[in-house]
């Protein structure tokens, strides 16, 4: 995922310490849940949904980052779920281990790797009050929060 850094809407000086912490935690939550819930792909999404619901009425900065984290988790959840069920189909002998399967597993490992690195990076930057915008997901977030 590509990152476009900037402080277009949010000025770091105007963001309080609490806001920074909450926004940063919205990313970290998904990471913790990811490691706890492995290999089930649902826990990281669940954790982000719970954190999002808990901060729905928070300030705009916190809400924005919770939403961006949630949307990114939805995207990765889709890929992980396909991989999870494909693996189960192999374990229960509905399918064979094929080049297509291994290629897909490598793809989702790559995507998850990018997601984890991006999440850690964004969490650190957000903790400093820097507004980090992710490719595509930031635009969807802008659109959702405009309404």
């Amino acid at each position: 995922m590509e990152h476009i850094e900037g402080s277009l809407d949010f000025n770091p000086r105007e963001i309080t310490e609490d806001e920074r912490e909450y926004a940063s935690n919205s990313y970290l939550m998904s990471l913790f849940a990811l490691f706890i819930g492995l290999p089930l792909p649902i826990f990281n999404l669940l954790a982000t949904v719970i954190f999002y619901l808990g901060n729905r009425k928070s300030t705009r900065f916190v809400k924005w980052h919770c939403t961006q984290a949630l949307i990114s988790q939805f995207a990765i959840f889709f890929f992980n779920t396909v991989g999870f069920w494909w693996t189960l189909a192999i374990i229960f002998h509905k399918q064979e281990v094929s080049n297509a399967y291994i290629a897909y597993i490598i793809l989702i490992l790559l995507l998850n790797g990018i997601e984890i690195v991006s999440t850690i990076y964004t969490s650190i930057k957000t903790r400093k009050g820097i507004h980090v915008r992710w490719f595509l997901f930031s635009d969807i977030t802008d659109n959702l929060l405009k309404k």
Partner: protein
Amino acid sequence: MKILGKFLILAAGIAVCYLLLLQVNWTSLFQVQQNQVRLESKLGKLVLEQVRDLYDVIEDEQIDSTLDSLFIPLLKENYIPTKNYDLLLVESEEVNAFALPDDKIIVTTALINFLDSADYMSAILAHEIAHCEKNHVMRSLITNFGLDLLLSGSGTGEVTNFLTGQAFSRKLEKEADEMAVEYLEEAHIDPNSLMKVMELFDVYLSSDGDVSWISSHPVPADRKKYLGQKINRIETEPKSYKSPISSKSWSDLQGLVSAYGNQD
């Protein structure tokens, strides 16, 4: 539009990545087939060691030779390579037979004493060979122990308990039964022997006997039903049926096995 454009770029990027990854022959690179064979062989050795710890393996030339007279024709007549197969007789009061990874088949002394005819023994052996040939052992292990076993190779104790308990799914048992009918027919052994074994077990079960082989399988009545259907479907040649060993040889084997038990 901006979102749609970015979405298409991202989706296209991921699709291109996947297509590029698809160009590599990963199964050959990771030696998937060879690793499965290696894993089965390794697991077979580990489980066999555990079986040797749990039971006394009987190694007697005369007994082995009679058992081979039953076992080898079943393999040869069905064009199954005999090289990797191993039939072991273990001392146990449980009426049991089971297949282990890497084509190892175990039968107990109680099973030999329990069966009235060599054909019945052939029927049970054909069933266990079918489990090996259809790769049921590894399939069941992967289904039951999944990635834990594959990644760590631990828990062989559990694996041994699972295999000696023969808890294959009904679908796999049915497949093995039907395959056994074909093996017996090819080896010119009456496939009805398998149905008669079911009857024998049915009677024995009603007297609360310890018949592990049957208690972990589908109920004998169901098996008799689908076995009958299978036998009707295949072209049988009753005139060609011939027991691989005489009834006297079978009785002698039972005598030898009993004497072996009495020595201890």
